[in-house]
């Protein structure tokens, strides 16, 4: 893919009255395999080409999008973007598109094996997944494995010329295991960049073991207890509200729980959160963000203290700061988004964490969960929970609800595990939180 179409689109938009223009073009090719009832049932080979054109004039912003790219369609889209711009009410907060012309860092995000692996080999990967589940007396209710590559170019009239390509692997599997008297459901979602990082068999075996442990649950007892959140449960409960709270646009607009809290304690002293857009093989890593600013690593919360909010260029200019390389793809701006969120490891093993709990629950994942990402209020139905009593796991429990507030829970973190797990764009160890309400 060359810059040709994009340069032409910029020229044409300027000729038609825009002061500034941004063009993003991307091509996606992938293969997706769908599993149902221990069978591969669908094999898809989708291919897309998309363009997003944003025209700016006198602080008015217009956007137009298209797919099925050819020159005629792109020029038609330029017309639409400029017409939208002319019709739009001005955005008084808009100052300028990003003025930057490199350099960009390098980061490992492309694996040619993902593209070159044959359809037959992919079918074999699915066969192995099915066999693994069957050997362990489980059934894949629904599963999906996707491998794809994306080529992307991002240009603007102010000097940005960024080009990248990346590969992506996603897998999501819901399975269940049954005994004579009970059936239990397990779910896993992982995202990778490199084929060799896909450990389907290992991940499935772990999930099957975990799911088997939740067969024949007893009714949970209500009360205030200690809860160990497994890495997936940390993501399910904490990451949505944290992403909203550390977003500079939300802070500027007063809808973040961390409003006015830079330098203040927002979590227990053991909790450190890093946003790293340059993590090699990171699921959300990239040399540049959605506006073409270089991505970087930053400590967002350090030992419980809120250090740095995430910013795009649009928001940074309003606050008199520099972008943190966290521009997202929503157009028009602002669009602030985390990259890879990493919870720093603590010192405890999972066994040590369990031993710390007199009365509590171990929750490997929180599937049936409602979290209000703005306020942090949540309730999570206990579907895959294990009871802990006097430092020991005492079997599965169900039919209750964990509830509380994520931002209050962050301050009640008692222990953080030393073993991190790479999910997709979240990397986290398990976390022990004291004093959480359970309704039976």
């Amino acid at each position, binding site marked *: 893919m060359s810059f040709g179409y994009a340069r032409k689109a910029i020229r044409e938009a300027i000729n038609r009255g825009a002061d500034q223009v941004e063009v993003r073009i991307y091509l996606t090719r992938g293969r997706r395999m*769908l599993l*149902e*009832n221990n*069978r*591969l*049932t*669908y*094999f*898809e*080979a*989708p*291919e*897309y*080409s998309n363009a997003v054109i944003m025209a700016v004039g006198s602080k008015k912003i*217009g*956007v*137009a*999008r*298209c*797919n*099925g*790219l*050819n020159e005629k369609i792109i020029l038609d889209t330029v017309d639409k*973007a400029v017409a*939208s*711009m002319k*019709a*739009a*009410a001005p*955005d008084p*907060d808009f100052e300028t598109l990003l003025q930057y012309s490199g350099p960009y860092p390098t980061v490992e995000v492309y694996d040619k094996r993902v593209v070159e692996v044959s*359809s037959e080999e*992919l*079918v*074999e990967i*699915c066969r192995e997944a099915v066999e693994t589940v069957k050997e362990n007396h489980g*059934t894949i*209710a*629904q599963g*999906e494995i996707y491998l794809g590559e994306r080529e992307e170019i991002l240009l603007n009239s102010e000097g940005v010329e960024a080009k990248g390509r990346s590969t992506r692997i996603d897998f*999501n599997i819901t399975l269940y295991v049954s005994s004579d008297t009970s*059936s239990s459901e397990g779910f896993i979602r992982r995202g990778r960049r490199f084929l060799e990082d896909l450990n389907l068999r290992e991940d499935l075996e772990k999930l099957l073991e975990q799911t088997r442990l939740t067969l024949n649950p007893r009714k949970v007892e209500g009360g205030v207890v200690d809860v160990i959140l497994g890495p997936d449960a940390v993501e399910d409960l904490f990451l949505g509200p944290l992403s909203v709270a550390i977003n500079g646009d939300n802070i500027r*607009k007063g*809808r973040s*729980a961390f409003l006015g809290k830079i330098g203040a304690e927002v979590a227990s002293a053991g909790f450190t959160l890093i946003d790293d857009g340059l993590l090699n093989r990171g699921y959300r890593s990239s040399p540049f963000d959605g506006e073409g600013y270089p991505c970087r690593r930053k400590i967002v919360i350090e030992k419980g203290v809120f250090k740095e909010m995430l910013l795009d260029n649009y928001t940074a200019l309003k606050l008199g700061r520099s972008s943190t390389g966290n521009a997202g793809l929503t157009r*028009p701006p602002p669009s602030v988004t985390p990259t890879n969120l990493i919870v720093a490891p603590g010192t405890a093993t999972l066994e040590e964490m369990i031993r710390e709990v007199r009365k509590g629950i171990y929750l490997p994942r929180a599937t*049936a969960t*409602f979290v*209000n990402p*703005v*306020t942090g*209020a*949540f*309730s999570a*139905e206990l*579907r895959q929970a294990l009871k802990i009593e006097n430092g020991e796991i005492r079997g599965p429990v169900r039919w209750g*609800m964990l*509830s509380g*507030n994520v931002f209050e829970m962050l301050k009640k973190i008692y222990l953080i595990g030393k073993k991190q797990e790479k999910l997709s764009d979240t990397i986290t160890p398990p976390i022990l939180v004291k004093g959480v309400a359970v*309704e039976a």
Partner: protein
Amino acid sequence: MFPDWVEGLVERYSSEAEFLDVRISYGRNLFLSTENGKLRSLDQRRGVSLGVRVLRNGFWGIASTDILEKDRVEEAFRKAISVAGAGGKVFPGKVNLSCEKAYRDRKRVHVKKSFDQMNIEDKQRMILELDRRIGGVDKRIITTRVVYSEGFSRRIYLNSEGAFIEQVIPGIHVLLFSIAREAMNMQMYYASLGGEKGLELLDEADLYTMAENVGREAVNMLAAKSIKGGFMPVIMDGRVAGTFAHEVFGHAAEADNVVNAKSFLSGLVGRKIGSDEITIVDDATIEGAYGSYFYDDEGVPSQRKVLLEKGVLKGYMHSRETAGVFGVKSTGNARAQGSSSRIYVRMSNTFIEPGDWTLEEMVEDIDYGVYVTGAMGGMEDPIGGGFQVSALKAVLIEKGEMKHLLKAVTISGKALEILKNVDAVGKDFTLEPGLCGKGYSGDRVPVTTGGPSVRVKKMLVGVSR
């Protein structure tokens, strides 16, 4: 323009497949949105895609492209045949599609007031005024948002049995949203309306009053109190009852979930599983409703299906593939997000039929319970039949009277118990538009959900702080 050489390709490649179909979609849309009194976006979109679906050795392969040039499309045909072959070698299946008539038809939803009867500037002025009305209610409102979208989709369907169907369907949708804040207490509220209509939708509702209400409800929720959770009687309004009908009952009544052992309704057809009060319908033929269509994505005409009649499970929703498994005809519920997406059994407009109670009569009998209106999201659990909904707004009922607002209420229960515990169904009725996702790619199709107010004798009420 529809490239007529596609029919030639269908004919040529049909011999290499047990079945082959092609879906082409064209779309044009306008999106406008505001945030805090300002225009947030003005965005025009056009899209096109073509997907080829091939059945070989009982295995489905799909390939797609958005470049409608003959060589690229032919490459997609070959790719679909190739991946179906690779899958079918290792995972051969038995797919017997139900026999259906191959229609050749063109259909269009005619709008009463076309989208160009109002220019973009006036649409923008309208949504900015709606945004202003939301925020004008109270200074504690910190976020206001309005999203407006309109557009047309033109979908073409062809298959190796000779079907050729073209349908043109418009869509219009307005979403109003607010967040109110007082110290660390933040509350949100929203309302939406939409349909397969033109601008006449804007004349059918008092949008400005709706906008003020969206602001007022978020502010009112700031004063909401907490109660101790537990089991108690619950009245769900039509929106929450619709979420139940869709998320729990509806997904479990999709025959692909039944075939894949993912439904708690498996083996229960003909059995009485609910109280006499409750009847649930999926109807894809409602004129103007957001989830309606003329033909599904396998070329089968849309239908009205009574899924649960006075508590008795009457049947499931089917695609041609699942109908083949059950030895019945397709119910016209095969739907896909776009031409490149796979087909699932999907709902259309799913609702509980109204009864004859007034809300006041339902409240009168309750000593201590909760009235829940609006849902912030529903959790589907077709396997376990678990139902969980986070309430947009909830009110405490005490000694037969509505008392004060409750914050952060979640209701949950097991579907089969809820169905049996329904003891009153209201005469009111509402249908709310939305998008339903299925599968991990979150393939979304437009649907509506709804019903009347429904009283359940006992549900678990959870309260977060």
